[in-house]
């Protein structure tokens, strides 16, 4: 019998752990809306294509604090958490506590490179210079992860107050962009992990954390018999004291809000997450209102907002059920540049353990539809139907109001139309600010039609005619 030799998978300690809190127990399931299916025709900015194959893909992108190693030894590492965006001064001025048990992912996320996961052995406090030293029982592979290595701390410490919220640098996973522009496309739905939020035993609603270390002391008599059946607050762990008539016993470790929160934690808590802003391409804010793009405020008051638009949290799109309104398309542009970047804002006033983005989507392979095939379809049925795949670099980058000038300014427009007479219709088309897909849709896709309106047919370089 032939034995098929299989490639060994990555070691578990090279893979970041799964969600620390799992999926919420009662939530509805993921519902994928497959907008594009095998065999369908799709219009890209580069022309008409047919979907050859489609397959589902999934991944997780960890959005904890990114840093670089400034020291690397077998039992400890030091991480420089300095962010370059100047909106994370909190990390460089306030000592933050990183609890035992949190993990650090060494190496870049994505691609087929090697990673190592190390676990923090003891509570660690960062310096006010933004340096954090983690000790670990794992053996750090210092040769693979020397000083200068990129790493991700799977934890974001709380901001002290609302006015001290902080913004982490934009990060990305370069593997999110498909390997071949305009012949392999990724359609990605993404959702944020949910983190349980508690209210403290004393009624405190900020910085309650996951555990309340205070003890509930019972000094009265005659509680023991009841304790057997009715735990205090349903959340405590008793250390002795079951006997009736016993006195002065202590109920310790009253966790999770202590008074009644243990029975069904999610029943009593909301699920929070950091806020995330998406850029695609790197300099263009997505999912933001027209007037709020690139207008971040300085947070100085308790109720202030960095920006009222563009930040999404788990209420907008959750890992449990990614919201299709915020889908991302990569690889749909002939010039690439469709890689999304994620910017994380910590404004919850709670420690966040392993915040991450779950990405579920589809990849498509495409084949270009020739002019001959289009003619044949028209001959057979008089018309043909197609769907549109938006080109993120065209569809979303506009900062223009469509009144004052063309999409990329007059210089580019004048150069593109040099030597040709411009009618009023030409002027309107230039200032209308629409994508080439819409132009294809309205004014045709034949070589002559495209050449007439733009001077250059971008498909020529593919078709060689």
């Amino acid at each position, binding site marked *: 019998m032939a034995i098929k030799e299989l490639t060994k998978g990555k070691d578990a300690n090279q893979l970041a752990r799964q969600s620390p809190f799992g999926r919420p127990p009662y939530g509805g399931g993921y519902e994928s809306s497959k907008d594009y299916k095998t065999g369908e025709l799709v219009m890209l900015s580069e022309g008409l294509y047919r979907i050859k194959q489609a397959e589902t893909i999934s991944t997780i992108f960890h959005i904890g604090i990114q840093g670089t190693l400034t020291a690397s030894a077998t039992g400890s590492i030091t991480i420089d958490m300095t962010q370059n965006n100047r909106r994370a001064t909190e990390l460089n001025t306030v000592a933050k506590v990183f609890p035992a048990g949190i993990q650090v992912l060494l190496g870049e996320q994505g691609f087929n490179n090697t990673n190592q996961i190390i676990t923090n052995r003891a509570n660690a406090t960062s310096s006010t210079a933004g340096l954090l030293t983690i000790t670990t029982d794992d053996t750090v592979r210092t040769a693979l992860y020397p000083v200068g290595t990129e790493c991700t701390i799977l934890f974001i410490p709380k901001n002290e107050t609302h006015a001290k919220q902080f913004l982490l640098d934009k990060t990305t996973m370069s593997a999110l962009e498909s390997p071949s522009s305009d012949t392999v496309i990724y359609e990605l739905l993404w959702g944020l992990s949910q983190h349980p939020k508690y209210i403290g035993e*004393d009624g405190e609603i900020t910085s309650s954390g996951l555990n309340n270390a205070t003890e509930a002391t019972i000094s009265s008599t005659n509680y023991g018999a009841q304790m057997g059946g009715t735990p205090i607050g349903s959340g405590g762990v008793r250390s002795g004291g079951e006997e009736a008539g016993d006195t002065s016993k202590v109920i310790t470790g009253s966790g999770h809000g202590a008074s009644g929160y243990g029975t069904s934690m999610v029943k009593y808590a909301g699920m929070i997450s950091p806020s995330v802003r998406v850029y695609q391409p790197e300099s263009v804010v*997505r999912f933001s*209102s027209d007037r709020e793009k690139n207008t971040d405020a300085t947070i100085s008051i308790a109720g202030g907002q960095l920006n009222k638009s563009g930040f999404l949290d788990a209420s907008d799109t959750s890992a449990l059920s990614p919201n299709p309104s915020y889908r991302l398309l990569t690889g749909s542009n002939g010039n690439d540049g469709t890689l999304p970047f994620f910017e994380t804002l910590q404004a919850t006033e709670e420690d966040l353990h392993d915040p991450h983005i779950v990405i579920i989507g589809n990849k498509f392979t495409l084949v270009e539809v020739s002019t001959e095939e289009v003619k044949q379809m028209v001959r057979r049925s008089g018309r043909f139907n197609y769907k549109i795949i938006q080109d993120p670099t065209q569809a979303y980058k506009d900062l223009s109001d469509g009144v004052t000038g063309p999409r990329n300014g007059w210089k580019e427009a004048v150069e593109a139309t040099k030597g040709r007479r411009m009618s009023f219709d030409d002027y309107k088309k230039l200032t209308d600010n629409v994508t080439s897909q819409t132009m294809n849709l309205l004014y045709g896709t034949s070589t002559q039609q495209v050449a007439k309106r733009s001077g250059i047919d971008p498909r020529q370089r593919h078709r060689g005619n």
Partner: protein
Amino acid sequence: MARVNFGRTPTVRGYNPLANTLKPGHVIQMRGEFYVVDAVEGLTVDLVVTAGGNTAGTEISDNYDSGYFEDADLEPYRNHLYCLIPSLTGQPKFITRSGTYDGVGFPDDTAEVTLSGALKSIGAASRTMVGLISPRVYLKHPAGIPRWHLDEAPENDKTGFIDVTVSPHEDPNPNFAIWIESGENQLPQFRMVNTTGEAIYNPVIHLQGFKARLKHLNKRDIDEARKANGGKFVYKIIKPQGLPHAGSMSADYDPN
């Protein structure tokens, strides 16, 4: 106190049902004109209610009334159209361990319960969460026109509001979606009123939906599209202004 978001409930799917309302290539008719949808993108806006004395944007007390306000940043570019669903986050509501529930906020349960009698349970020594509350939000859109009201009660404020029961942040109710066109008089005017009996720590109106970029179609474009489609011309009708309004004159009379 700061503004505190208590998060979403984990028990609903929570997806945006507007995702496929408009797609690139769709044709819409709006105010008698035709437009082709050029591009569509998800959109989210959080309006922290800072009107009516809540200038810091922190918590709002019971009986707070913001009055109607508008946010100029909600105006889209000339060639853009917003479709947004207003929604509210829920705030946990408790009954205290003594059984009271009005204005209890987040009770301090650290005080020791003295058990003076035999067989008395201490299991009840905790507050109990009973639900989620939020302020009410009223809307006038376009400016000055009350929405979501009964015809014969346009401005008596007994009708025409949403709260977390009607449209929660994690699962916004698409029936209350509004279309926002360019132009100052197309801006929605919101009003937040807190009649919950509690202070509310996250007085934010969340707006979720999408924006679409439109290209106006002239008669020649329409004729060509009709010709290319075998004489058919398929489009959706969008009425940004909602139903004709009965008029607000009668609301001026208030015997109180």
